């Protein structure tokens, strides 16, 4: 019952927060653990004892990882935004995501031992290998911006999954826009 209440409270809170986009809501829904800090990361499958949470029919295999920091879950902080979305067949970072990248750059320059993966994705339109290359270009765009802002290259790692791991499974323009993304994954 307490868990139920907690989940309802979390959903209500998530719905009320203006800065709260899809990804934050999913963060919140992922917070079933006693701790209220978490981070979205890719399922690692390397034997780590991590809790897995299903998101959007569990297609893309996300997990929540527990991190000893509250910075990332505060929805008012740009650091809580860890997904950067792109236009069709474009790897240009849109103006609205520059503050997000600046916030991560700031955090990473202050925490030089912290490393991240920049995971690039595309929507399903077009060919698979072209999409791998396109999604990598997106991750590279974010990489270069972070580098210019002082993040050391050894702190960052670029991975591209192309269209292989969609966030949203449908075929509408909205699904596609959710899938054209770079995820900033703290290690």
């Amino acid at each position, binding site marked *: 019952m307490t868990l139920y209440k907690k989940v309802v409270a979390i959903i209500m809170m998530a719905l009320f927060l203006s800065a709260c986009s899809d990804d934050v809501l999913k963060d919140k829904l992922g917070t079933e653990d006693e701790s209220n800090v978490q981070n979205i990361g890719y399922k690692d499958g390397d034997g780590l004892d991590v809790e897995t949470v299903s998101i959007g029919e569990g297609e893309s295999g996300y997990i929540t990882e527990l991190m000893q920091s509250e910075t990332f879950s505060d929805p008012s902080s740009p650091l809580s935004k860890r997904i950067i979305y792109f236009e069709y067949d474009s790897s240009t970072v849109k103006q609205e995501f520059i503050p997000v990248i600046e916030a991560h750059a700031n955090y990473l320059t202050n925490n030089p031992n912290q490393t991240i993966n920049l995971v690039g994705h595309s929507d399903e339109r*077009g060919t*698979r*290998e072209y999409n791998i*290359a396109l999604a990598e270009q997106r991750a590279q765009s974010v990489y270069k911006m972070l580098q210019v802002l002082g993040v050391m290259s050894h702190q960052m790692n670029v991975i591209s999954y192309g269209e292989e791991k969609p966030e949203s499974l449908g075929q509408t323009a909205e699904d596609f826009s959710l899938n054209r993304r770079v995820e900033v994954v703290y290690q």
Partner: protein
Amino acid sequence: MRLFLKGILEVLGLILRLNKVFRDINVMSLFKKTVYLVVFLLSVTSHVVHAELIIDITEGIQSQQKIAIVPFAVHSASAKKETEEISRIISADLSGSGDFSVLAKESMLSSPTKVEQVKYRHWAVAGQDYLVIGSILKEGKAYKIKVSLLDVVKKQMVTEFRLSATTGSIRKAAHYLSDAIYKSIMGIDGVFSSRIAYITTENTSKKQKQYSLFIADYDGHNAVAITKSKEPLMSPAWSPNGQHIAYVSFENKVSEIFVQTLATGDRRSVAKHKGINGSPAWSPDGKKLAITLSKSGNSDIYVLNLANASLKKLTKSWAIDTEASWSPDGGSILFTSSRGQGAQLYIMSAQGRTAAERLTFEGDYNARGSFSKDGKRIVMIQAVKGNYRVAVLDRESGQTTILSHGRGDESPSFSPNGQVVIYARRKAGKEILSLVSIDGLKKQDIKHTSGSVREPVWAPKK
């Protein structure tokens, strides 16, 4: 107007077919009466996965050869099942090709099993062009198969085929016979003995997917998963001798190219650089792989020498360069690049010394091109107004024909005889495989029993 155009197309198609029939009659006269074929085929012992593909003709049958396949004579009771299976597979192959209309058993006026029993008028009355009769004799473990192809119009035998098979190779033998019959009538090789590779995905739980790389007969039978992973598998590519498959695997969370030997299941990692390791394509001599790497910060095409692992960088643009495919003579490499406006196909020397030449100008997006075996055609994905479709570019005329009608069609691959293209399309929320003739007139879906199927690649002819 559309109807009128369709009518013209049909008449043109008929003229082409008639031309072909006359040409084939000449070709056929060159055939000697009897061809002896002996194939002792080993049965496939590896585990067979019963997730079968089913061929389903969906549209567009134009003029067809009419053929009757009389149930074969059974000389021993123990061979009844195999005998029935062979006639059934030949019927399915020929009708599935879309080039033949196979007469229903109920419409047959007689059931000859020997040439001397054939009454040609029975088949002429039924409007048939050809007749296939045969018998199977069991000798020890071997099935001795004898099949005759007869021309109903000329009232004579075209060819007789003899082969031997074991229980495990009945299906293979039947496909072999279908190929022989197809070639005798159509003058070109059939695709019935060919194999395909493809990737499937299935949700194993709410959170996990299983990716599998399958090898199967062209009709989806004898499907064997040669690699399985919880992480994406991509871009399978057959070696020219059909003995190895190169593919991309994310099993270590990053992309990596493997080459796997089918007979042994052994595999080795051939590319594991920082960034993208993708799009493997075998050189026609099987000694090199063209691959896409982004280790220098941007996706470029490299040629990897498999013997000494040396790498040669072929493209140096700031743009995306990927999806390499060799010309059949090994001299050129076709690839997708975003160096112009959006994705387009380019061709360059396989030595990489000359500037690349742009090949495609129609459509907003042209990608993943590959050559037909004779080098005369290129099949690719072309997007027009947001619809991604299979298109064939005729190199001589420069003309492009759209072959599919989906919104997100993918991964086209030529059949070994260059007459059919296999590709992946979306149907009812699932990805399925589809076949289309290069004139775009004949279409078939290959249904998979579960999960999604994609990235089909036709094996080269052995």
